[in-house]
């Protein structure tokens, strides 16, 4: 560790807006207004090399959009992110975008949809190697694919099979092997274990942690499962309706959650060993992102909301070693 570590990934004011308006004719005839969906609205964070930042939140909070922004599948509407000191989005636009893409790879949620069923595993894992021109010789390619498969606990002989011959957990390991093919430094993992059973989830999480240790990989880990997040992350960002509401170290967040939404999420997890314990569920649901409430987006569900929360949107501020967007915490009310 150097004295002043330079974060490998730094996102600043990252925003993505989707135009979900009705078609032009309906807008003219039926006078329907333009509708803009602010999927991600000003998200900023840093991840240091070899660390894991987890993003958690409920469906529709924008966490997968952040993942897609970071791998260049979407261009940001506002803001951007730097990777190893370079403006990544500028790099994605350039002719040598491959150089950047090689260093950032992604693992998707559904191992049944993310592998081409008509390709052999050899072609699936070997594609990034060929595409990036890293390996051209056939024999060399085979050796390398074999090594990659072994690194995720599969056998080199598995390269001659099709995806349907594998179980869900094995397929997810093939996706990991493919993502590792270009020797990336940064892996964006979008719900990598949500589609898996618990015993298989444990296998995949253990492999991901081992690979991180061995190769000093940096992860952005997206999940809605807080127990999994607690297991894999160093930093945790909690998102609600396109914004970060709390960003803190793992221990701070789980031992002393500050934001009312974070507390609600933690309370909502069933506790395994306290059987029959009644939870106190929070009322209400995530509001429609097309028409978010004014002020703090969480205010309609928040037990601590006051007039200021209903009118003024809280900014993410550093308070007591963590970053949090909450008027009540800032004013010392909770």
């Amino acid at each position: 560790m150097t004295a002043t570590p330079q974060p490998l990934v730094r996102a600043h004011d990252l925003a993505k807006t989707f135009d979900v308006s009705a078609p032009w004719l309906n807008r003219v005839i039926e006078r329907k207004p333009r509708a803009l969906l602010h999927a991600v609205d000003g998200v900023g964070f840093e991840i240091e090399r070899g660390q894991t930042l987890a993003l958690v939140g409920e469906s529709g909070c924008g966490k997968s959009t952040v993942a897609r922004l970071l791998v260049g599948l979407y261009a940001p509407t506002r803001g951007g992110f730097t990777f190893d000191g370079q403006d990544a989005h500028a790099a994605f636009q350039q002719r040598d975008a491959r150089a950047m893409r090689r260093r950032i790879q992604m693992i998707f949620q559904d191992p049944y949809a993310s592998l081409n069923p008509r390709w052999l595993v050899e072609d699936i894992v070997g594609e990034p190697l060929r595409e990036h021109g890293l390996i051209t010789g056939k024999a060399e390619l085979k050796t390398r694919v074999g090594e990659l498969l072994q690194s995720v606990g599969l056998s080199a002989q598995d390269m001659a099979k099709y995806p349907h011959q594998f179980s869900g957990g094995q397929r997810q390991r093939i996706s990991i092997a493919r993502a590792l093919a270009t020797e990336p430094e940064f892996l964006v993992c979008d719900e990598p274990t949500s589609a898996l059973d618990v015993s298989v989830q444990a296998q995949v999480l253990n492999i991901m942690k081992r690979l991180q240790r061995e190769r000093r990989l940096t992860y952005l880990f997206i999940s809605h499962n807080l127990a999994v997040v607690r297991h894999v992350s160093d930093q945790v960002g909690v998102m609600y309706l396109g914004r970060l509401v709390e960003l803190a170290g793992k221990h701070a967040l789980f031992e002393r959650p500050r934001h009312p939404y974070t507390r609600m999420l933690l309370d909502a997890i069933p506790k395994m060993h306290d059987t029959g314990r009644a939870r106190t569920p929070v009322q209400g649901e995530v509001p429609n992102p097309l028409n978010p409430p004014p002020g703090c987006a969480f205010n309609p569900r928040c037990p601590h909301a006051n007039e200021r929360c209903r009118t003024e949107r809280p900014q993410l501020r550093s308070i007591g070693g963590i970053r949090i967007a909450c008027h009540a915490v800032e004013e010392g009310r909770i």
Partner: protein
Amino acid sequence: MSLLEVENLVVEFPGRRGTLRALDGISFSIAPGEILGVVGESGAGKSLTGAAIIGLLEPPGRVASGEIRLEGQRIDHLPHEQMRHIRGRRIGAIFQDPLTSLNPLYTVGQQLVETIQTHLPVNAAEARRRAVALLKDTGIPAAEQRVDHYPHQFSGGMRQRVVIALALAAEPQLIVADEPTTALDVSIQAQIIQLLKSICKTRGAAVMLITHDMGVIAETCDRVAVMYAGRIAEIGPVHEVINHPAHPYTAGLMAAIPDMESERDELYQIDGAMPRLTAIPPGCAFNPRCPRGFHERCRTVRPELIPAGATRAACWLHDPASGVAA
């Protein structure tokens, strides 16, 4: 007397390449007002057990042997027409996806009224009054207006409340809930679980709750059955199964779940995967993955459910006469 008794249930799928045995000798019972959890990984046969009970096995699947009894009456071989009267009236069903279990072309009110009038001798006005009351009971705000809305006008959590209202419409004695919270976010999941628990308590309905989520089971159920490869591996009071699992599979499953209370660097992993139906190993189905299954008997003779501490487990380790027990 038990409300529901399942005895040696075998469900088979005849196919061109032979018959697949998807459920192999399942036995359990549910008492009136009890919540029984059925947990297992994908392919363990938990949904199939639920489908067999409500008489909705997809052909060519069929109950090959064994019995399902509701209050002592056999319901596994009833003709379609008779089963239709039991389903909905005496056994309600809640499925995983709240969008596909509602008809998008009818208002929720029409669907509720239809269900109520099919099973109960009430007129249209009374049925509608009951529909509104059901929506209120399931926590839908402004039920009088919402009753005339279509399913797409409801959010996921609200839709699942409507599905619960539908299942309760004819006041059944038993509700089979297949993954009722899996499609929902955690905060909504907590609301739905709470609702299911309280509403079944006030109405005295028993619940068979099928889920893969041990946390949901821990919080909701009185007893739990752990399934593996079409068989019950362990069954017992939920507190005992979670805190003192007797079957090595249950123990592995519990250790593999990352939990909020302790921190481990490495999760316990059960190597391998559940066997396919075409290749269920002889003896104990779990033996190739079992950390303690190195005994000859485990590989050759199938264990039945036997008392193991406060639970019952299908494992030779708990049979002192087997010679496997350490």
